[in-house]
């Protein structure tokens, strides 16, 4: 039965690995296209890790299977053999193999991370205000005056569509703010989102942008990125936010610069 274990184990290892290795464009069980400027860094990091840990995974599983296979075909009264060198090679190889891998990973990875979350947004980035609430995202553009109106939690009213709690009467800046339910941005232009939540923690997740950021109530959380491909992507909430969590989504429309300006004009006209 030890042999059976070895076989099953190695089969499992191979089958599991195949799905990781085979990822053509038609395979939905893989990362979607990368539509962001920083995304390749993330993908690269992920693949590096995939190779390194994949090797460890396959090697150790097969080794285990191999040894089990051997160890069940031994005669009565077999005098056991200790692994050559005892525990030392284990310790050394682990420290060297894994140590080197994690050193490189954390070095490169930290740079990727810093590039996304620690670097400040470009000065000409397009500012967009994001309000998350159970169970929808709302997006706000500053409008012609380039200024956002103040937010008043007590004025928030889904019914009348005042999602941000704006006060157009007393607040000039608020009057021309463009509030929409789907995020529309120009391609290849830096975007600076300022995200806040009106109730509980939500999360802003766009697979194609390789971006995820929790939106914590009480905080204004900045997030900046540059979309490099036009198209329609999904923004979903990845932080458990209540019963409607699974339905909380919005669309991200990345338009060519010209189209975007038209779109924004239309919206301003409608305000």
């Amino acid at each position, binding site marked *: *039965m*030890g042999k059976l*274990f070895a076989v*099953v184990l190695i089969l*499992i290892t191979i089958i*599991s690995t195949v*799905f*990781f290795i085979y990822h053509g464009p038609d395979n939905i*069980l*893989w*990362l*979607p296209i990368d539509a962001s400027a920083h995304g390749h*860094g*993330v993908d690269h990091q*992920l693949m590096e890790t995939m190779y*390194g*840990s994949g090797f*460890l995974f396959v090697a150790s599983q097969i080794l*285990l299977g191999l*040894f*089990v296979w051997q160890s069940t075909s031994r005669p009565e009264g077999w005098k*056991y*053999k200790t*692994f050559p060198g*005892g*525990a030392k090679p*284990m*310790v050394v*190889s*682990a420290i060297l193999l894994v140590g080197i891998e*994690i050193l490189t*990973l954390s070095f490169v*990875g*930290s740079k*990727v*991370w*810093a590039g*996304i*979350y*620690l670097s400040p947004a470009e000065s000409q980035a397009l500012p967009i205000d994001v309000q998350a609430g*159970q169970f929808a995202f709302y997006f706000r553009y500053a409008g012609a005056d380039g200024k956002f109106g103040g937010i008043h939690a*007590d004025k*928030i009213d889904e019914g009348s569509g005042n999602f941000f709690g704006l006060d157009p009467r007393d607040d000039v800046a608020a009057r021309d703010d463009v509030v929409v339910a789907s995020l529309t941005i120009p391609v290849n232009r830096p975007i600076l989102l300022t995200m806040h939540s009106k*109730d509980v923690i939500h*999360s802003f*997740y766009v*697979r194609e942008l*390789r971006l*995820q*950021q*929790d939106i*914590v*109530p*009480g*905080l204004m959380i900045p997030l900046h990125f540059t979309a490099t491909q036009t198209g329609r992507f999904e923004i*979903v909430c990845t932080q*458990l936010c209540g*019963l409607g*969590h699974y339905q909380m*989504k919005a669309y991200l429309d990345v338009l060519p610069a010209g189209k975007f300006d038209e779109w924004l004009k239309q919206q301003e006209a409608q305000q």
Partner: protein
Amino acid sequence: MSEATAHAATHQHTAPTGFFRKYVFSVDHKVIGLQYYGLGLFAVIIGMILSWLMRLHLGWSTLAIPGLEKLSPVGAPGNVMTPEYYLSLMTMHGTIMVFFVLTNVPFAGFGNYFLPIQVGAADMAFPRMNMMSFWVTLSAFLVLMAAFFVSGGPPLSGWTAYAPLSAIGQDAGPGQGLGQTLWAVSIAIFCVAQLLGALNFIATTLDLRTRGMSLARMPLSTWAWFITSVIGLMAFAVLLPACILLFLDRVAGTSFFVPSGLVVSDRLQPHTGGSPLLWQHLFWFFGHPEVYIAILPAIGIVSHILPAFMRKPMLGTRVLIGCMAAIGFLSYMVWGHHMFVSGMNPFSAILFSVPTLVITIPATIATLLWIGSVYGARLRITTASLFCLGFVSVFISGGISGFFLAQPSIDTYLHATYFVVAHFHFVMGVAAIFGMFAGTYFWMPKMIGRMMNESLGKLHFWITFVGVYCIFMPMHYLGLAGNVRRYAAFTDDFLVPLIPVHQFITIAALVTGAAQLIFLFNLVWTRFRGPKASDNPWQATSLEWSTTSPPPFDNFGGKQLVVHNEAYLYGVQGASGDYVMQTSPETVAQD
């Protein structure tokens, strides 16, 4: 007190008579251990049924599950689960499994039963406190169960109970009323129980070792329980106040975790000035050590069982102990890796990511030690040894995915996807459960004096082993595809095509779950019909095998053992038999 001590040394305390003192309010660590085991068994059954219901809903979200309406008329009108009820079941599944199964059975259950025996003591250092810790644990469990039956049903904010969702009460959802309060109370009580348990374990390990049982000679399982209790001592000490503060936020109107101006279901919340991240910090400061509280005992149990079937000593016993200690030490430096994208200061992310990656080193060493120990052995294949080997395999599979999630730059894509679900289910859930199974098949003969049925056991192993891979491997692929976790149903455009995979997982889960009935039957059958077990059926060396099966009330029939050897003298040439018991005075060349 000198006579008190002498008394302690020999432990001539008389066995209780009468059913209650014997089996219910017993101070005997063996009975308490079995009680913990029983509680864990009950809890795991509930937890598994919950996961069945969840899986069914994920595969077929409109499926009517007969009888579900009986369980909760509000949660499942017309037997179809509502999204909020899904979340409630998910929360209860997580809480039950993490606290009342993964923490209870390998640590409190087996630990209680075997730690004193393995060090040659007649009982825990504080038997009454031991009894207390079980009954406190039980009451925590009952409080949690009560959440099923209160109006609004169980909480729905997940086992992590992130504030403000968990702190603002009914407005946040049906389960967020009394249900969530009960959750907080239950966990707070559980912390107290763990504290009592940890004190007892530490004192017993250090003070009640019989003559010759030096620290270096203690079995690896004892070491694991000891290290675990040290971790628990500090970890639960942080969760306790966290739960108290959460409780105050909920019932006393404080604002520790709730910021100003929240508008939930169109009501402006009264709280002002709190910080949701504070809860996450306090929770995960406990939460990450908790992961190792769950897995370390399993590591110890497996390392304790393997040599008995390999008929050779564990490779690098000392190194393994060092690894467990290192893992325990590091577990306090890494909790932030649960919070990379939580709005935590991005600088901290790097700070937390490095030690997280470093943990893979001791983990890898341990794994290599297991694999290297199998090399050159003559393996006896039993259900217990199979589950040990299964544990190693699963531990590898689960640990590997840690490489990804430990890096913030990758976590920004994989966080809160099924990749995470796969990771912690493999490395913490399945691995620990395999440890429990191995322990059960290995120790049941000692615990109930009867041998478990091997053919049923092997059948159980094969279905479970292949099953868990069918369940959790595909979750990695789902995660890479960006499949978000904690969704009651998959309506997003990019998620709909993934539903077939979920259906496959669901079927695998149902089959694997069904296989556990074989185990239950085997357990019950063994209890009543199983063949009598000899004192040392596996020809093992540690102290629990030098007493009767099951052991007498004071473990060794009043005699105080003397230990002569280290724990794992197997395959010793020139010994009577191929092994030397720890208690055997015969001197053999130890290589």
